[in-house]
């Protein structure tokens, strides 16, 4: 997977996978990311970041 090419989305996805997210679905998003428009990339990035924060918080409880 091209983590560096994906402006940080690769790192977020890797962390989500460690937290139990669906590898196949997230691999699709990682592959498609560079073909999305900037505003689409932003929406997806926000979604993934929010999920990561919430899951990390729940793991610490």
């Amino acid at each position, binding site marked *: 997977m091209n983590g560096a090419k994906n402006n940080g989305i690769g790192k977020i996805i890797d962390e989500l996978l460690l937290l*139990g997210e669906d*590898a196949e679905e997230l691999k699709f998003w990682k592959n498609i990311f560079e073909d999305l428009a900037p505003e*689409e990339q932003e929406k997806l990035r926000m979604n993934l970041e929010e999920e990561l924060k*919430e899951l990390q918080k729940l793991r610490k409880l």
Partner: protein
Amino acid sequence: MMSFEKIKPPKEIEVPFSESIPANKELVLTPEYTSTMERHKRRRLELLRDFITSRTVDVTLNFVPGIDVPKLAIEGMLGKTLSDEKLTSRRRFDYMLISGGIALSYALAVCVTPDTALAARGAVGVIANVEFGPEMMKDIASKTKEKFPKASAFLEKTASYFAGKREQFIQDAGRIGKEAEGYLGKLNRKLQ
């Protein structure tokens, strides 16, 4: 008219249908944890629907100005997938990608051919009546790469996602294709 000949797929190992595949199987998932994941997955499904709709509409409006049927047809197909509570989140994601891939393939097949009405009839046949597999999706993406780079790139990645799940794709696409026929037929009539 472009030809979308049936390509014999390379011999592939059949991959059984898989539910969500968490990379970390040692995690104990509480209901709150699972529902948080589901909420974000659902939001991503909505994004996926919007991304597919936007690309399909871009393609069709580019060729047939003012026509709104493709948008309605795609929203109908994708909206039904989104609201089907019987599907697990993984199935819903795959269904959305297959439905979107069919819609996008159809739009691209119609829009790169010189005679729109003739192409529409041909494309309905292509989508609904032959075994529509990821390799055909890839073929359409490749033939439309220059004219519609954004849409074809999306289609190509969608085809790659299903490359290892061909049997599942064919089964689902057959079912979805029958439904799609009704929606796509509306576009066909409008073009004639």
